[in-house]
C-alpha cells in the first residue's frame, strides 16, 4: 500500500509495524509528531503497547533502556536538545547492551537557538555506543527503522540503534511511502527474543554494576566495540532478507552514479538528494561525478567507503556539522578510513554547509566540484570552506544594523 507520509509519520509507522511493546516519550520540535501519532494509535487500540511521557529525555532514555533490558521491544524518539539532555544515558544504556530503537530528528543545537536541522546533535552521540543509521527519504526512514530492530536485537550486536532523519527536510516533508503489510514485516522481523536479557523472579541478575580497575572496564568497552562492528554483518544480512520480501535493497553505503566516476560528493542524510540532482546535471555536461552516502555511520563502514571511492581523483566532503576548531566530522572520519590505502583518492576537500537548515543549492555544488578539480590539478589543498554567500552576509548586515550591533564578532575573528 502506498501512502503519502511525512518522515515523522514514516518513523511512527516503523515503530507500529515493529509491533513495539513500549514507547517512552517526550516532546520536542521537530520530532513531536512521531509520539503524537503513536499516542493516538495506542489510545485507539491500533498499537498494542504502552506509551508513557517521562519528565525529560534523560528519564526517557533511561526508561527505554530499562524496559529493553527487561525484555520488551522499545521505541523512542527525540531531537537535538533532547538528545543532548539524555547524553549521559545514551552511553549508559548502550553499556547495558539494551537493544531498542531511537529515532532522532536532527536539529541544530543551541546556541543560537534554532529549530532547523543539521547533524551536530546526532554526531555528538557518535561515540555513545549506539549504532547509527541515517535516512535520506521517508521510505528509508520506515525501512531503516525496521532494519534497526534486526540489528539491535541481533545476538552478535545487542546494542541500541539510532535512526536519524533530518528535521523539516524529512520530518515534515510528505513523500509517497510503500507501507508494508504487518504479515510481511513479521517475516523479516520476528518477535524480540530477549533470552538472557531480562529481570525475572526466577533468574536474578545484576546489570550495569561497577567495576574495579581498568582491566574489567576495558574488557566491557572492548566487547561493546567488537559487538558494534558486528552490526555491519547484521545489517547486511537483514538487508538481504528485507530485499527478498520487499524488493528494496539497502547497503551501508549508497553509491549514486559512481561506476566510472572520477569525482564524488560525500554527504549524509536528506541533503544528499540535492547532490543527486546536481550529479545528474553535471553528468549531462559530461562530468564524471557521483555521490557516495554512508547510511551507516556507526559502525563506520570503512571497507565499503574505501571500495566506493577507490581510484577516484578527488572527493568533496560536505559536512552538515561543524566541530568547532576542527571542521567537518565526516571529513575527518573519511580521511581516517582512506589514509594510506592504495588507490585512495589523493584529494579530499572539505566543505561545511547546511547548518541550522541553511540550504545548499546546485550552484554551490557545482562550485564545490570546480574547487575540488582545481585542487587535483594544482596539487594545492584548499582549507575547509564554510559555505556562505555574499547575499547571506548582506542580509545578516541588515539584521545587525537593526540590532545596532557595534562589534560584529567576525571583525575580530577574520584575519
Amino acid at each position, binding site marked *: 500500500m502506498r501512502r503519502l507520509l511525512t518522515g515523522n509519520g514514516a518513523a511512527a509507522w516503523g515503530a507500529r509495524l515493529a509491533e513495539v511493546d*513500549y514507547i*517512552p516519550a517526550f516532546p520536542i520540535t521537530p520530532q513531536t509528531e512521531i509520539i503524537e501519532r503513536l499516542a493516538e494509535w495506542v489510545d485507539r487500540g491500533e498499537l498494542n503497547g504502552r506509551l508513557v511521557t517521562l519528565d525529560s529525555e534523560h528519564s526517557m532514555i533511561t*526508561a527505554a533502556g530499562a524496559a529493553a533490558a527487561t525484555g520488551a521491544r522499545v521505541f523512542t524518539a527525540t531531537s537535538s536538545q533532547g538528545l543532548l539532555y539524555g547524553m549521559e544515558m545514551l552511553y549508559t544504556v548502550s553499556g547495558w547492551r539494551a537493544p531498542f530503537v531511537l529515532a532522532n530528528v536532527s536539529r541544530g543545537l543551541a546556541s543560537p537557538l534554532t529549530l532547523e536541522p543539521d547533524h551536530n546533535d546526532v554526531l555528538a552521540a557518535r561515540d555513545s555506543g549506539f549504532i547509527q543509521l541515517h535516512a535520506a527519504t521517508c521510505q528509508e526512514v520506515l525501512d531503516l527503522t525496521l532494519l534497526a530492530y534486526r540489528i539491535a536485537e541481533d545476538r552478535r550486536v545487542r546494542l541500541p540503534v539510532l535512526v536519524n532523519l533530518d528535521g523539516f527536510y524529512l520530518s515534515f516533508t510528505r513523500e509517497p511511502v510503500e507501507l508494508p503489510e504487518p504479515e510481511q514485516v513479521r517475516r523479516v522481523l520476528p518477535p524480540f527474543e530477549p533470552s538472557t536479557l531480562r529481570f525475572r523472579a526466577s533468574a536474578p541478575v545484576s546489570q550495569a554494576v*561497577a567495576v*574495579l580497575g581498568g582491566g574489567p572496564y576495558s574488557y566491557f568497552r572492548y566487547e561493546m566495540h567488537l559487538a558494534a562492528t558486528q552490526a555491519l554483518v547484521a545489517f547486511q544480512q537483514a538487508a538481504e532478507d528485507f530485499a527478498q520480501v520487499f524488493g528494496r535493497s539497502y547497503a551501508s553505503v549508497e553509491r549514486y552514479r559512481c561506476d566510472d566516476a572520477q569525482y564524488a560528493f560525500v554527504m549524509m542524510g536528506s541533503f544528499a538528494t540535492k547532490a543527486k540532482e546536481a550529479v545528474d546535471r553535471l553528468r549531462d555536461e559530461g562530468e564524471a561525478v557521483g555521490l557516495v552516502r554512508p547510511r551507516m555511520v556507526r559502525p563506520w563502514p570503512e571497507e565499503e567507503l574505501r571500495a566506493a571511492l577507490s581510484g577516484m581523483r578527488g572527493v568533496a566532503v560536505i559536512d552538515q556539522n561543524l566541530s568547532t576548531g576542527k571542521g567537518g566530522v565526516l571529513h575527518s572520519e573519511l580521511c581516517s578510513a582512506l589514509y594510506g590505502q592504495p588507490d585512495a583518492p589523493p584529494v579530499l576537500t572539505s566543505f561545511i554547509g547546511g547548518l541550522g537548515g541553511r540550504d545548499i543549492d546546485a550552484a554551490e555544488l557545482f562550485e564545490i566540484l570546480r574547487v575540488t578539480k582545481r585542487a587535483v590539478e594544482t596539487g594545492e589543498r584548499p582549507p575547509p570552506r564554510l559555505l556562505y554567500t555574499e547575499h547571506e552576509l548582506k542580509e545578516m548586515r541588515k539584521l545587525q544594523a537593526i540590532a545596532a550591533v557595534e562589534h560584529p564578532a567576525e571583525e575580530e575573528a577574520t584575519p
Partner: protein
Amino acid sequence: MRPEGQRDDKPIRKLKQLPARHIMASGTPMCAGCGGLEAINEAYDVLGENTIFVNAAGCMTLLSIYPYTPFRGSWLYTAMAAAPAGAQGVRDALDVLAAKGKLDRDEDLEVVVLTGDGSAYGMGLSATSGALERDLDFLYICYDNEGYGNTGHQYSGATPHAARTATSRGEHGFGGYKKDLFSIWAAHRPAYVATALAAEPLDLAKKVQKAKQLKGPRLILALSPCPTGWDFEPRDALEMGRLAVETGVWPLKEYVDGVVTHTKVPKTRLPVERYLGRQGRFRHLFEPERDTGQLDEIQARVDAYWDAIER
C-alpha cells in the same frame, strides 16, 4: 521453593519476628557502622528476594561490584538522576509483557529504587516527581546520610543547618536548612510515605511491610547516621540514630490516605545538644566557645515542629 527472609504476610508486631540474620550477604565495602547499609539490610529482610533494586550513583552503588553482589534478587545501576525512570522502564516492561502473556505473573518483581539523599532530594527529584504523578507502582528507599557521601560528604539538599561538610567548612557550617522531602512526597498524594531509621528496627520493618502491601508510589526515607561524613565512632551508629529520635530531630511518621501519623512520639524530648554534641560535624557549635545562638535556633525549630504536631 519458598524464598528466605520475612516473606509471610503475618503482620510484624514484635522484634522477635524479625530474622536473626540478614538475607543480604555481608562483606560489602561500606564503612564500618554505616547506618544506611543497616537500614537497607533491615528493609531487605522484609522485602525478600523477589526484588529488583534500581540504584542511582552513591555509596550503595558499590554494593554490586563485578562479579559480586550481596543481593539475592536483581540489581540495575542507572545514574545519579535516573533511578525512578529506570524503575518506570522495568515496571512498565514487566506489566506490558505480562499483559501480552509473555511473562508469568510468578516472575513478577517488586521494583525498588535505592538512592542517597543527594539523588532523592536533588538531582533525581524531577524523575521522582514524574514517577509520582504517573502513580508508578514502586518503592523508593532513600538512605539519608545528609550529604553527598560517596564524593566525600559535601552538603546536599538534605544537609541540616549548621553542619560542617566538605563544602561548608566555615565558622558556622552549612547556612541552609534541610529540605522537607517527606512533605514534598506527601504533596503528590502517593500511596505511602514514611520516615524510619535502622536504630528502630521494628518501626522500620512494620513500615516496609506496610509499604510492600500497598500499590503505587511508596517512600521509606531512612535517616542514615554516617560515621565518615558526620564524624563519630562507628560503634555509636545505633546510638546516634536513637538520639535523633529521642531529641525529636528525626520524627518517625507515616503518611497514608492524606493523613500523617507519628509512629513514635518521644515522651520527653532530650535537648538537641545531646545529639549534636556527639558529632564532629557540629563540634564548632560547642568549641572553642558555645554558639548559643545557633544551638537555640536549632532547638527552637525542633520544638516548633513538635508543638505544631501536639497542638
